[in-house]
């Protein structure tokens, strides 16, 4: 399990107040983790801060699952 995934998972658990075992790479923010669109925007903001990067709006829109976020971060750091 990658370090990025662990960090992302922690942020998702804190932010969305969900059980840790629900946060898998396949989990969709909106469907499986019950986030609304504002939650997702906020989550992306936190990821930007945590990983010290800027995620462009058009890229952020494509992030639908936890795995999408991890892949994006790993390939843009």
């Amino acid at each position: 399990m990658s370090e990025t995934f662990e960090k992302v998972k922690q942020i998702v658990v804190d932010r969305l107040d969900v059980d840790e075992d629900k946060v898998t790479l396949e989990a969709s923010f909106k469907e499986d983790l019950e986030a609304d669109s504002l939650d997702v925007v906020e989550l992306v903001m936190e990821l930007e801060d945590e990983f010290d990067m800027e995620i462009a709006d058009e890229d952020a829109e494509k992030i639908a699952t936890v795995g999408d976020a991890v892949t994006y971060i790993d390939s843009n750091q």
Partner: protein
Amino acid sequence: MLKDQVALITGASRGIGREIALTFASKGAKVVVNYSGSEAKAQEVVDQIVANGGEAIKIKANVSNEADVKAMVKETVKAFGSLDVLVNNAGITRDNLLMRMSEADFDDVIDINLKGVFLCTKAVTRQMMKQRSGRIINVSSVVGVSGNAGQANYVSAKAGVIGLTKTTAKELAARNILVNAIAPGFIATDMTDELTEEQKEQMLALIPLNKLGKAEDVANVALFLASEQANYVTGQTIQVDGGMVM
């Protein structure tokens, strides 16, 4: 009322914005005086606040330029550590009859008076969402409600600001960010000084209170909207117009 709150006020070197900056500072807020052209006047506002024992800085930024706006918000948070109140006040006029109004005059006014509100709001939202609190106060105009001959550009922008206020209020309510607008009527400022005597007389005839408003009349309503007194008010447009439009 605003002890240690950080307030960013756009177009605060003159007129209504200046008055809001001075009023907020007198109630304990740390104030960022934004300006685009009049640096000396912005400095005067800062000096006055500091002389009265308050805290203020000035930041130059064109509100219709996203890079400027982002830098301004960043600088604000860096200087004061948070951002609690945004007052979107910066505005210009380029009056003319529709038939004579150039495309550039239309675009300039929409850029500053409407797009500027959008850009500043967008830029502060991140900080306010993190804080789980914030106040955004948009200075619209009563003509945005009533229409006004000779101001197709200005009225379009100010009516747009009212719609933007309602939408932003709905989007951000879940994060405890309250968004309201003030629609001043005929307030004595540099902007209204440009009107002809005839125009002034015509407007006075339409005002039940039969006098011009003062910048402080608007600042007091802004203070209310920024304060805890307005905790249950969002998405509203409050007219400060002496009863001109009902």
